[in-house]
C-alpha cells in the first residue's frame, strides 16, 4: 500500500477518534463543568491501553495507520492536557501537580496493561 493510502487511513481514524473524544468532552463539560478534565484523562487512559494492545497484534501498515496512528492518536490529546494543567493551576497548584502526576502514572499503567493483555500476560478468563 502506498504512502497516500496510509495517510488517508490516518485521517479517517483520526477523525473518528477525535469525534469520539469530543463527544466525551462535550458531555463532561455539560455534566461536570469544572471537572470536565476527567473526560480528557479517561480518553487518554483508554487510548493508551488500546494502543498498547494493538502494538502486540503485528498489524499491517494500513490497519496500523487507521487504528493506532489515526484512531488512538486522535482519541487522545496532549494539548488539552497541557491547557488543563494550567486551568487547574489558576485555582490550586497542588491540584495541577496532582493532575499531571496522576495522568502520567495512569497513561503508562494503561499502555503497559494493554500490552500485557495482548501478550497474554494477563489472564482475564480462567
Amino acid at each position, binding site marked *: 500500500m502506498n504512502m497516500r493510502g496510509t495517510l488517508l487511513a490516518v*485521517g479517517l481514524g483520526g477523525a473518528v477518534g477525535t469525534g469520539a473524544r469530543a463527544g466525551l468532552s462535550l458531555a463532561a463539560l455539560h455534566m461536570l463543568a469544572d471537572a470536565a478534565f476527567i473526560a480528557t484523562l479517561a480518553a487518554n487512559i483508554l487510548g493508551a491501553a488500546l494502543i498498547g494492545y494493538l502494538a502486540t497484534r503485528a498489524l499491517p501498515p494500513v490497519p496500523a495507520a487507521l487504528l493506532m496512528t489515526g484512531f488512538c492518536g486522535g482519541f487522545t490529546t496532549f*494539548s488539552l492536557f497541557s491547557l488543563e494543567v494550567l486551568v487547574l493551576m489558576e485555582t490550586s497548584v497542588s491540584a495541577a501537580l496532582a493532575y499531571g502526576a496522576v495522568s502520567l502514572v495512569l497513561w503508562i499503567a494503561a499502555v503497559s496493561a494493554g500490552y500485557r493483555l495482548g501478550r497474554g500476560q494477563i489472564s482475564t478468563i480462567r
Partner: protein
Amino acid sequence: MQVDLFFFMAVCAGGGLGAMARAALSSWISRHAHVAWATLAVNLSGSAALGLACGALMAQSGGVVLSGMMEAAPPALAVFALGVLGGYTTVSTLALQVLMQWQAGRRRAACANALGSVLSGPVVTVLGLAIGVALVRGA
C-alpha cells in the same frame, strides 16, 4: 457552547487533518532523529499553538482567566482545540514509545521522555498564552 451536527462534523474533520499533519511531520522528523523526538515536537508545538489561540482570545475579550474558558469558547476555538489540535497531539503514541524505550532497557530515556513531555507541555502552553496576549495587545 452551541453544539450542532455541523460543529461536530467540523471537529471530526479538524481531527482528521490534525492526525494527518502529525503523521506527515513524524515521518519526516523520524528520518533525521529518534521517533520520540518527533512525538515531542508534535506535542509541544500543539500545546504552544493552543496557548497562543487562548491567549489571543483572552486579550481580545479583556480577561486573563482561563477557568470557564472552554464553556464560553467561540465555536472556531472549540473546533481548533478539540478537533485540529486534539487530533494533532497524542498521548497514546507517547505512552507506547515510553513503554518501548523502557522494555528496550533504555530506562533513563523512557523516564526523560515521560517526565520531560509532561513538564514541558504546560510550560510551552504558558509561553504560547503570553505571546498570544502580547500579539493582540500590541496590534
